[in-house]
């Protein structure tokens, strides 16, 4: 067992974990943060995307011990004071989901994308989401949601979401 201390969605946590424990397992099984989901065994689908020190990562491809001393934000930490994050709003507004399984990862990746490029073109959105797979929507409304979020959110709100 290795002791790790990190911040998850603004809360400081300390735990003993097996080195082989994946970050996504730690979030789900130790912390009960089941908002972050597992969609594949090959690190291809992006459903498990969270932010590590403000940058998107696939939490199934990071060990919990690698997050020691760092800051993790999951889909559960995006909303502030009961207010949905502008990207969450946009997905609701534009019908950016059907079954919803890919949505936590899509939203976390979209937030990262907009942090880096607040006014993306449609093509840039499609490329920026290439590591996230959706089986339902055909991506059309997901792309629309991200463009909607870019159009409707002030930059400050987005930067504050990191």
């Amino acid at each position, binding site marked *: 067992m290795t002791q790790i201390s990190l911040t998850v969605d603004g809360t400081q946590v300390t735990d003993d974990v097996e080195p082989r424990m*994946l970050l996504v397992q730690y979030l789900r099984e130790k912390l009960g943060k089941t908002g972050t989901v597992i969609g594949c065994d090959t690190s291809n689908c992006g459903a498990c995307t969270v932010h590590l020190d403000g940058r998107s990562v696939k939490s199934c*491809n990071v060990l919990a011990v690698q997050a020691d001393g760092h800051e993790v934000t999951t889909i559960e930490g995006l909303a502030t004071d009961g207010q949905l994050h502008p990207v969450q709003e946009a997905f609701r507004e534009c019908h950016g989901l059907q079954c919803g399984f890919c949505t936590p990862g899509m939203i976390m990746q979209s937030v990262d994308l907009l942090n880096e490029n607040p006014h993306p073109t449609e093509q840039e959105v499609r490329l920026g989401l290439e*590591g996230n797979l959706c089986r339902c929507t055909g991506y059309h409304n997901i792309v629309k949601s991200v463009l909607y979020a870019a159009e409707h959110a002030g930059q400050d709100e987005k930067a504050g979401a990191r």
Partner: protein
Amino acid sequence: MIPAKFDYVAPTSIEDALSALVQHGDDAKIMAGGQSLLPVLRMRLNAPEIVIDLGRIDSLRGVREDGDALVIGALTTHAEMVTNDLVHQHALLLSKAAAEVADSQVRHRGTFGGSCAHADPAGDMGSAALALDAEFVIAGAGGTRSVPASDFFVDLFETAIGEDEILTEIRVPKRTGWGAHYEKFVRVAHQWPIVAVAATVNASEGTISEARVALTNMGSKPLRATATERALAGAAATEDGVRAAADQAAEGTNPPSDLNGDSDYRKHLATVLTRRAVVAAAGA
């Protein structure tokens, strides 16, 4: 799936990492970004007794200048390679290739050194490093040595890095102001290339004076397209000007046949992608 059990150390200096490696020998596996290693461990294709995580060694990160060379820490991430100003100015090809690796999430974690050390024949960074004549600085208990890219890549998943050695940095001769392009052929998003071509070109007033071209996934390791390079010297930087040279790109190669394409198809791809890459690199 989750990996088999292993012990874990995260040394904070190269010296400590090397002594851990010497102590555990065969039973140890080094981890950089983990983006290739963790999938391997999760599939249980490998089960090391101990993982030595280089992620806490700050001196292995970042890009600096040293005279005529750019020195890139092995742990510099693909994402940093894409945005770093020094890389842009002096080794644009590396930045272009890094932008094509995997997807945004993987680029945030995966490293230049880890990519080269992994030596997947379909890896995007190896051919870019080879085209630029990069030197790989490798540290061992007995000191460090420097291996040119042409000797570094040995075979499928095999490099010149010894069992108890660590790749610490990559030195790249500056190609300041050279145009560059990485042309990658895939069937679906964020995939490994079926074939890709790394090209960097010194061109002025519509004429190419020097070109460097390397091929990804055209054999068991990255390959230089030397016939093409020779034929490009003095060529016009236009589609027609580079066509004859690009047609020689697959010369001397023996690419594999697999589900993504057979050998002849890959050879054809190499010529087409070379033409595109060189034209784009020359800014024609």
